[in-house]
């Protein structure tokens, strides 16, 4: 027998009831999502709104929980790699790398030099697609319908390039323990070399059309201040942290793979607002291109193949122990922690998603702003909900 005999008794679900407990007079409680055009994925935010001003906001997660970490306990080591492509479809290769890096650390495998270069090039291209998608979708949320089309024009070119070595366009799973699935062919490298100058010539147009636009600037400047103290309390990383002025990037501060061979900068902005985070991401796109150029130059002199000789089979058995590997993703610091008990199935995999920490800063950043600003702040945090819910 249901506890609720009468529909009227069931006044909202658990979250709404708890949220309503602290309601002030004269305010309205609205649900943004889980079906909403601007929350990028299935995110629900319960907002208490006084006229147009947000008094309290609380994200409710779990609508997209697919138990990736539990799947890690039932899949073989090699068979878990496709999962990592689906956790965050924006920067799938970074998640692939984090997992594969952790397993390689556990097994003591050294990846050949050429494979490292290929990984760097592909991950940086993937960072470009992730930022382009973010840029287009952010401006779409703010009401302009054309910049997303221009961004997708460039993004499709990158997807065509990345399709060659991986046969995928969005949910890449071409990393293997010990290297990559396929090597680049000559056509791929040629396309990459022609793409960089083409995209460099397009970036000024993005700035002219959108960044300098006074309407956008008024929507985005000084909105959603997340300063250094807030970042430290919530554990924000990535462009959110760099937009607050802290020059922390995993590629420079805890270098992994061959990132110490490249000369690139960490863009930061001191304004701590959404505009700062926006500018950081656009500057990161330029830095990614620098890394790719240098890597393409150094690639012919790299030794080895695209995968280590006698690469472990998918049903490999790493020695018992634990390893943690972190990687700079498009959203922040991605970490994967694996525990092995010597079997062919992991004992525990823990995924550290940067979006989870970034989103938790939203509640504090959005208090006191207008409802329209909530959308601007959410967009500037660059959330991909599947990685938050895992």
């Amino acid at each position, binding site marked *: 027998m249901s506890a609720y005999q009468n529909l009227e008794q069931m006044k909202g679900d658990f979250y709404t009831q708890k949220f309503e407990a602290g309601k002030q007079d004269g305010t309205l409680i609205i649900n943004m999502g889980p079906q909403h055009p601007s929350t990028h994925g299935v995110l629900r935010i319960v907002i208490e709104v006084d006229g*147009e001003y947000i008094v309290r906001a609380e994200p409710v997660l779990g609508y997209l929980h697919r138990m990736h970490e539990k799947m890690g306990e039932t899949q073989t080591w090699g068979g878990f790699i496709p999962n990592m492509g689906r956790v965050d479809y924006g920067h799938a290769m970074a998640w692939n790398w984090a997992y594969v890096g952790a397993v390689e650390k556990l097994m003591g495998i050294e990846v050949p030099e050429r494979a490292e270069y290929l990984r760097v090039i592909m991950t940086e291209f993937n960072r470009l697609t992730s930022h382009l998608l973010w840029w287009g979708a952010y401006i779409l949320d703010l009401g*302009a319908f*054309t910049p997303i089309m*221009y961004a997708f024009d460039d993004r499709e070119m990158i997807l065509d390039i990345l399709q060659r070595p991986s046969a995928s366009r969005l949910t890449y799973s071409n990393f293997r323990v010990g290297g990559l699935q396929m090597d680049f062919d000559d056509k791929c490298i040629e396309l990459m070399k022609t793409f960089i100058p083409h995209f460099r010539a397009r970036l000024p147009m993005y700035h002219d*059309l959108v960044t300098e636009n006074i*309407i956008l600037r008024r*929507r985005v400047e000084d909105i959603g201040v997340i300063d250094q103290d807030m970042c430290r309390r919530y554990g924000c990383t990535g462009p959110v942290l760099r937009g607050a002025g802290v020059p922390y990037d995993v590629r420079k501060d805890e270098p992994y793979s061959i990132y110490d061979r490249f000369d690139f900068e960490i863009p930061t902005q001191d304004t701590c607002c959404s505009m700062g985070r926006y500018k950081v991401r656009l500057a990161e796109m330029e830095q990614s291109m620098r890394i790719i150029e240098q890597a393409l130059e150094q690639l012919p002199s790299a030794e080895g193949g695209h995968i280590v000789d006698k690469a472990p089979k998918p049903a490999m058995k790493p020695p018992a122990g634990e390893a943690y590997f972190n990687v700079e993703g498009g959203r922040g610091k991605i970490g994967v922690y694996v525990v092995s008990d010597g079997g062919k199935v992991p004992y525990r995999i823990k995924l550290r998603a940067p979006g989870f920490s970034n989103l938790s800063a939203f509640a504090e950043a959005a208090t006191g702003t*207008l409802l329209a600003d*909530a959308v601007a702040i959410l967009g500037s945090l660059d959330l991909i909900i599947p990685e938050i819910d895992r």
Partner: protein
Amino acid sequence: MNAFLSNLIPLIIAAVAAMIWLGLNALVWVYCERKFAGHIQRRPGPFEVGPHGVLQPLIDGLKLMGKQLLTPDNADAVLYWLAPLLSMLPVLLLFLPIPYGPVLIGMDVNLALLLILAFSSFNGLAVILAGWASNNKWGVLGAARAVSQTVAYEIPLLLTVLTVSFMTGSLSLLDITVQQGGHIGNWFIWKQPLAFIIFIIAMFGETNRAPFDLAEAESELTAGFHTEYSSMGFGLFFMAEYGYMVVMCSVCSVLFLGGFNGPFPGIEGWWWMLIKTYALLSLMVWARWTFPRVRFDQLLNINWKWLLPLATVNLLATALIMKL
């Protein structure tokens, strides 16, 4: 009796012509907007239905008519269905006093401008009814925003229109057009450039078009005041929006761009009016697909802090110069 009939029959013909004109414009501009949007975004736009997609709006209209007319639970049915009608009907009236050609005018009233300004305020009432009667939190929020926006942007509109009528001494649109006759130098845009710019911006605000379209094309508040409408209810709001756009652009071309006058004397015709109106409509479509949306308080700021003082200063300056 005879006088009554001889006044009534042309009026009825004009009203029918206005309905046809509105329908045609809605069809043409729905198509043009989607095609412009497509080409700005470097994609084809509607292409399949009819050659190059020209029958698309017709089929869309038929589709809308074929859908089910839903009334939400606990909604006030009378007000709910009154709102789209109230939005649509004044548009027909607004077309009547606009001179589309030297003899192509529905009714030549002395107070044409007053008529137009007065009846275009009905849109605000319709929006509030729609939002309130929908029994939907998002609808109410959207309607509240839309009403304060519409009411606010009418004032600079009124002030700029007053400026022009100060200069011409008449509120009749036919009169204003005739006074801009002759060559292109007579058009009022040269004498009142500030008023022209203010009118254009106020036009965007009045018709809820981007970048001032918070009431409708929300990515924040789903669909604002017309969230709950389906089928022809939505269709009527849609048509009414295009109708208001055409009316406002026609009024702008009459007031500032010389109406049906050509650049040289002696070649007046309805085609000039059409070209000018459509050029302004293209500008509205172009701006929609380029700019992001303005936030609500910034929208009101633009009106109360920029447009209103500028329009007032313009009016006072015009009055001063006219006196001297």
